[in-house]
């Protein structure tokens, strides 16, 4: 996302800091103006060279690498927090435990797509009520050894990749809510400029999941009654409340940049109003466009922040 006249996406965010295990102790890592910094490792690149030659890679450096791997990873939006009340409780002991664990796993949903027999992912039926149909028996010749080996190798590589990815995610989540917000903002900003068919679904879902909770607070509407689409072109977007009762629906069109500029900066619901855009970014004072109610025109609001890692804004 380019820097517009209304500032960079993170201009409404202050710096934040967390401690991470590094070597035998704990080191600070710092997020500042859209960058992750390692105060205890001023020459991280040199450390990486040493690590490549067989030296141990510092925990801070590993974390910075993980951060760098995921700054445009839309999965961050799918896994990370939807709001301040959505507590993600991951600690470094979880990371350590995941590091100890092998690449295996119990399957989760995934086995449902693997062609495995039965209905993995569904409740265990045990032949009881509603038992799923018996799977179709497939009889085939046994696979050749070479092909089997290749598939096993591929499976191992994918499992290791999955383990690495999970470790990355747990490490990044362990940094706490402030960093989770900022990483989500960075990811959203990376895709906000020109969302395409491959990124729009994840962006729509990410806005839906977050806006639905905000709309519940704002209007008391059921989160399931919020339908989001991506707005492109001039203007802040569109918002209308239609229907009544069970058929009530809040239809919202917002630009993808809303995630980074508004939501990630903690501005989404300020002074009981829905913030739809940032007119002048800044910390701790900014000017935003906000809606008092569906159907109303957005009005500029001067807002000021308190708090640090996860800012809270007041009118």
């Amino acid at each position, binding site marked *: 996302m380019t820097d517009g006249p209304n500032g960079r996406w993170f201009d409404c965010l202050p710096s934040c800091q967390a401690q991470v295990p590094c070597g035998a102790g704990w080191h600070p890592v710092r997020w500042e103006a859209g960058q992750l910094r390692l105060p205890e490792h001023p020459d991280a690149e040199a450390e990486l060279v040493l690590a490549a030659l067989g030296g141990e890679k510092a925990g801070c450096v590993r974390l910075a690498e993980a951060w760098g791997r995921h700054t445009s990873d839309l999965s961050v939006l799918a896994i990370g927090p939807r709001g301040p009340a959505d507590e993600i409780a991951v600690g470094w002991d979880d990371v350590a435990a995941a590091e100890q664990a092998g690449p295996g796993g119990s399957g989760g949903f995934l086995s449902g797509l693997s062609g495995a027999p039965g209905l993995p992912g569904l409740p265990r*039926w045990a032949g009881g009520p509603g038992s799923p149909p018996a*799977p179709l028996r497939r009889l085939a010749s046994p696979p050749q050894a070479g092909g089997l080996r290749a598939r096993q190798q591929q499976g191992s590589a994918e499992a290791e990749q*999955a383990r690495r990815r999970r470790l990355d995610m747990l490490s990044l989540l362990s940094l706490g809510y402030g960093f989770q917000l900022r990483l989500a903002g960075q990811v959203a900003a990376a895709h906000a400029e020109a969302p395409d068919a491959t990124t729009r679904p994840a962006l729509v879902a990410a806005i839906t999941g977050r806006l639905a909770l905000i709309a519940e607070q704002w209007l008391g509407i059921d989160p399931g009654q919020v339908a989001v689409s991506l707005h492109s072109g001039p203007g802040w977007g569109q918002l209308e409340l239609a229907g009544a009762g069970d058929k009530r629906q809040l239809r919202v069109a917002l630009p993808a940049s809303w995630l980074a500029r508004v939501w990630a900066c903690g501005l989404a619901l300020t002074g009981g109003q829905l913030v739809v855009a940032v007119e002048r970014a800044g910390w701790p004072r900014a000017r935003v466009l906000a809606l008092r109610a569906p159907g109303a025109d957005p009005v500029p609001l001067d807002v000021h922040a308190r708090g640090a890692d996860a800012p809270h804004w007041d009118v």
Partner: protein
Amino acid sequence: MNREGAETYLRVLAESQLRGPMTAARGQPWPLAGSAKLTMVSQALTAVHALEGEVAADILADLDLAVSVRQRPESPIPPPSAPAGTTGATGTTGATGATGARPRPGRVRFARTGPMIRPPAWPSAFPAGARGPERPGPERPRPGAPDRFVPVGLRIPYRDEVLSGEVFLMSFAHTASGARFAVAWRVHSSFDPDRAYPGMVPFGDFAVTDDRGRRYHLDFAGEGPDLYGEVELRPEPPDDLRWLDISAPGGRSVRVEADPAALAAVAEPEVSPLTLSPGEQLLITLAERLLTVTPDLPPDLRRQLSAMSPGPLHIMAAGIGDVIAALQAADVLSPLSPVPGQLAAVCAGMRVSGHGITAPPAYDLPEPWLSLLAFYQRRKPDTPPVPDGYAAVAAALPELDGIRLALLGLLNADGSSWIKLLARGLVPESRTGPFGIDYYFPLSFWIRDNGGRWHAGRPALVRQAHGEWVVKLQLVPPLARSTTSIEVLAAGSSAQVRVRLPLRWGYPQ
């Protein structure tokens, strides 16, 4: 097809499923119904090719991890000391400022979480078997020679020092991949009368000669310890084969007419066009799976199926409404399609609740569906087991959606009815669909008996045989031995075919 709409639907559904773990008390397991619904929708979208399996796997993996990091079942562990004002798990307060103190997280448990492993790519054809490379399939040149499917209906008794029994020839088929008989058999052993194995039938001792005096032998090519399968005729006979004489050890010689022209003509198949969207075809498959679920239920439940309310199948149906909405979002199901309403009527007829279909039930159901619903509503879904028997039946059907089917035989065994098919054009498919639907056999298959009752053919086994596929369908409900003729109805997305066939039954002695 709107792939973006499909992916968006699944991702937004995943968001809605995550709200439970976000708001539920910590330590409460995530309701399994959520994962079931999401799995079902993802399977439906991949089934109609609106969503790549890898994308679906990624979405589910992300949700799996998202749920896991929100479940904190253990008591908080005191955090290590860390500088004040820091955030993150090592901080004393977690996030600082207005959000207040955050409790120290406990161990994240991945009780349900597996690594993000993509579904394995299924080979385009099965690799060579233990018996060596598969012979070339239907592509093997056999210029000018049409396939031949001949109903037989002959019983061949045999006896040697230890074994005795009988082989029932249901049909003879000669296609590009060879010549074979569909057979059923009974084996009696003086040592172990209770057991029977295909290998115990001394097919190697059977003498086979044709109308020109050429000799052949029979090779068992079955599918396991069943009492029916195929035996191949080796070497391959000529295309103008007229008959075969088969002599079993200790038995008499029987003559098998192998020329269909020598037999009474059967009616030509009638083909009529259909225009089903991929979404409609999937929903029809779901409806038919629901209608044929009884073999999966324990006998007690089968008997109570129509009397219980809410019905025992409501768990199975959870998520159908979301599947329909997802198919509509993917533009593979028209909002005007009658099929969702018909599926709702099937659910209503089977007392399936909680399906979430918003379309009102439409009672102009296809005749086979009505027949099966009537079968359930007569409260006799668990009919007395049908006695064993074998019916000679053979016919080739016109191509449906690129698949050619030929009927090889019909048998009643183990209290169930089965029909054997030879199929060409099936595509190996690793995906599993909603309700455990397997996409190896994507056609709808029904049989109407001469009493007017319909029987659904539910895929039970698919086995590759030299580039062709042997498919075994279980008929629900079973076919009575009094059936003297059947009408076969097979349907794909673009056409359906009907053909009437006489049945010639034989029974084990």
